[in-house]
């Protein structure tokens, strides 16, 4: 049994134009019971939420009537968290998080919640949750602990082809990835080259410069111009991740 509650502290976003990003409460707040005062500790997704908020703030500075904004939804994905609705809402208020809605769902029905709430990007620290959502057509990514997170929202796109069977339908999550790319691209264009609150980073791990070139052109054809590009041509990705500091990685709709 799911329930969706609006956060009355926060001005609601325009449903038609906003980019709905759902983040699990486990990612936002430290798991476990609250520490007696009804408040949870800050979790892994905190820097991400702050970065999303900063993007919104800058978008509104450019245009006070802007409707292409991030609309953040906090979602519970298990019954234990589902029970903690009051501490979740009060913690959100305490930290001043710009969360539009709360979805209180359990393991069985959180995906239904994502679909009902027109979520365009789902972020979780739990890989299985992200996989499940991805399989049902929701663009998803796994959140990791960040070392020295940046203030600027940094979205990393993995440009390599993931091996897929030749036959078979295009996964819905890939369509979701394409439309998300286009909207991200529009958002990015609201800012200039310098001092943007958001940066799109493309990394191609194998295939050399041609691979990267194709990725750049394909993304551009979707309406997304990338800020930074790295062609690794087989070099390992982990040494570069700590320099790149992405908030999350997107893999064209398929979790890699």
């Amino acid at each position, binding site marked *: 049994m799911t329930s969706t509650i609006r956060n009355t502290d926060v001005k609601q976003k325009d449903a038609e134009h906003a980019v709905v990003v759902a983040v699990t409460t486990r990612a936002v707040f430290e798991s476990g019971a609250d520490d007696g005062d009804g408040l949870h500790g800050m979790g892994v997704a905190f820097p991400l939420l702050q970065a999303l908020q900063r993007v919104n703030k800058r978008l509104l500075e450019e245009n006070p009537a802007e409707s292409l904004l991030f609309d953040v939804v906090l979602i519970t994905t298990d019954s234990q968290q589902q029970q903690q609705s009051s501490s979740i809402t009060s913690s959100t208020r305490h930290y001043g998080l710009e969360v539009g809605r709360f979805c209180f769902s359990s393991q069985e029905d959180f995906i239904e919640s994502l679909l009902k709430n027109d979520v365009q990007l789902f972020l979780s620290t739990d890989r299985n949750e992200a996989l499940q959502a991805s399989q049902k057509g929701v663009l998803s990514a796994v959140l990791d602990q960040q070392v020295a997170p940046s203030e600027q929202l940094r979205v990393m796109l993995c440009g390599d082809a993931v091996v897929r069977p030749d036959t078979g339908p295009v996964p819905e999550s890939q369509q979701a990835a394409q439309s998300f790319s286009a909207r991200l691209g529009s958002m990015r264009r609201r800012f200039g*080259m310098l001092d943007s609150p958001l940066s799109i980073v493309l990394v191609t791990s194998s295939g*050399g410069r*041609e691979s990267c070139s*194709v990725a750049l*052109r394909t993304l551009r054809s979707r309406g997304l*111009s990338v*800020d*930074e590009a790295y062609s690794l*041509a087989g070099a390992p990705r982990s040494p570069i991740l700590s*320099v790149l500091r992405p908030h999350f990685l997107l893999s064209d709709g398929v979790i890699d």
Partner: protein
Amino acid sequence: MSQNNSLTGSGQDLTSSGNRAQWEDARTALKPSTPSRKPKPPKTENAITIGVSARVLFNMEKEQHIYEQQGMESYIKYQVEHETQPFSPGPAFSFVKALEAVNTQLRELYPESEELFDVVLMTQNHAHVGLRLINTINHHQLFIERFCMTGGNSPIGYLKAYHTDLYLSADPVKVREALEEGIAAATMFTPEKMAEVSETQLRVAFDGDAVLFSDESERIYKAHGLDKFFEHEKAHENKLLDHGPLKGFLEVLGKLQKKFYGKGQRMDCPIRTYLVTARSAASSGTRALKTLRSWGLEIDEALFLAGAPKGPMLEKIRPHIFFDDQMFHIEGAAEMGTVACHVPYGIGQRVIKREMNDKETSSAPK
């Protein structure tokens, strides 16, 4: 803006948003037609990684001018509008071509080995300039598969992640940062007219003090004059000089040379190294040579100029690249067509730093 792919040999239009299959088709269509299979880039830990910035690899003077006069937005707009127009070669171009020639010969002799040069394009440019840079690499048929386009961020972290053995840039600030992180680096200057260099033999020339060696002797010279310098060097003839920032690079060159010697290619080795120093053979040269020998480093030719200008000697040698810590020698070399690179290390830099602070202007992404 048109998706003109004439440089990469295909007219396929990519404007329809593609699915995975289309992406793969596009990649096949865009591949330049090469008769043989392209070799794989070596693993970073095995390779000798050379990081070059866009402005030294290619001639981007016009674009640099646009950036300085009209700002970033105009610069990017211009770059994107001219995306299919390849840049012409910059000062590092012939050096990179020579590295590739060495690789070809190494692959022939040691087909299984990954001890090869790996040239990485390390630029602070935005990825908007990416397609033009990739198109240019394709046009000149350079073997560059790895690159970092950092979109305005410092490339230093990436230099370290790739275990870069040498970094060349037009920006002295970045070069200094790299040196501070222990990466061999130098600021490359473009000579008015570039002298012709070999396409088959890589030639690298080094100054001695504050490049291969530390600047300890230069300190003495600056503090106490030439006579004291000679005295000191003679007295410490058998004491090793400490190493300088480019010693490691000479070392890797020596390692590759030995691979050629191992296959009987000593007389016509595809790599040749030179020491071009203001020291004189009789008095202060001994200490330099003894130091090199005890480091196990061989240098093919040691030229002791005893203070004579380096330009004419370099003009005879025709190195692809020359490293020196003193701008006076860099300018002299460039005047005579040598691609000279400044190593901003040691006591010789105090004056330079002050001058730079006075007239430092913001520079374009490289």
